[in-house]
């Protein structure tokens, strides 16, 4: 079962909303590498449709789930505290949904500090 694209969008959106609400989070970035994003941008220019890659990548492989989140923080708090809080909030959310914490890896990367 994969959460990318169709079917899993509600879950990705919920996680994204949760992350944005964490104090100290300024923005959420795409988790795609540059080349893929450039192609996406070119396509969106041509068609006029915003073709944003998923903000949060969640892949489900057998019984393990990997979540990848890239954020920018604002200047209100220390970066490690914000990043740790994001992790904990997402981890708790997924635990409540029934994900096994032992097999749910969550990457949080702070890509900019504002």
């Amino acid at each position: 079962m994969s959460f990318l694209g169709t079917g899993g969008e509600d879950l990705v959106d919920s996680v994204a909303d949760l992350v944005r609400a964490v104090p100290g989070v300024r923005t959420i970035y795409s988790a795609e590498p540059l080349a893929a994003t450039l192609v996406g941008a070119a396509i969106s220019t041509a068609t006029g449709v915003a073709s944003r890659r998923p903000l949060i990548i969640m892949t489900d492989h057998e019984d393990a789930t990997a979540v990848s989140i890239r954020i920018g923080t604002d200047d209100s708090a220390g970066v490690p505290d914000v990043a740790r809080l994001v992790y904990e909030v997402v981890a708790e959310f997924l635990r409540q949904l029934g994900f096994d914490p032992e097999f749910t890896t969550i990457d949080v990367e702070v890509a900019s500090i504002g």
Partner: protein
Amino acid sequence: MKKLLRHGLRVRSERRASLWRRHDLRLRDGDGIIGSASSAALLREASDSTLAGRAIDGDMAAFEVIVRRHSGLMRAHAIRLLGSNSESDDVVQEAFIAAWQQLPELRNPAALKSWLMRIVSFGCMDRIRARRDAANIDDHDVADSEALTPEAVVTAASRNQALALVLKKLPPPQGQVWELKQSGGLSYEEIGEVLGLPPSTVRGALSRARKTIIQEMEVWR
């Protein structure tokens, strides 16, 4: 006369273990805003070297200053090579995007401008080759000799006009070779590669172009 004065003054901190870890210093910005109007002004006036360094470190604001500063010349160069401005904007945009990616490999940040011009040169020649492949015809412009008489050069109102006329008169591939060497910053070998000519032909064309231009410009003077 603007002059650049440099003092290579190195101000070193003392390397003391754990000195800064818990030091209670207040940031000068008080209200937490990083950057200010004065730093934006300093950025606009910064040298290409400084801007390139910051852009390599990821500062997009510095790169934007680079774009604003050099895009005019790059566009003019592209229009010269492409013969029109329908594709020149695209080529220059692509050049800047490529430049951002390759900036970390630029060994001499002070040579930013000529490096950017080289990227534009290669981009233009790729387009010209693609046009030629698509249309399968020889794309050289033949100079319109009627309007470009020697008298026209002599009576040109300004040096710029005189030179523009002389350059237009150059038979192919001299005009392209001249542009790629003088403004485009390419080497003989590179010009040969992009034009599909042996380096000896390139040298010969450049040499003839140079002689023509010198003689015509001396006449104008």
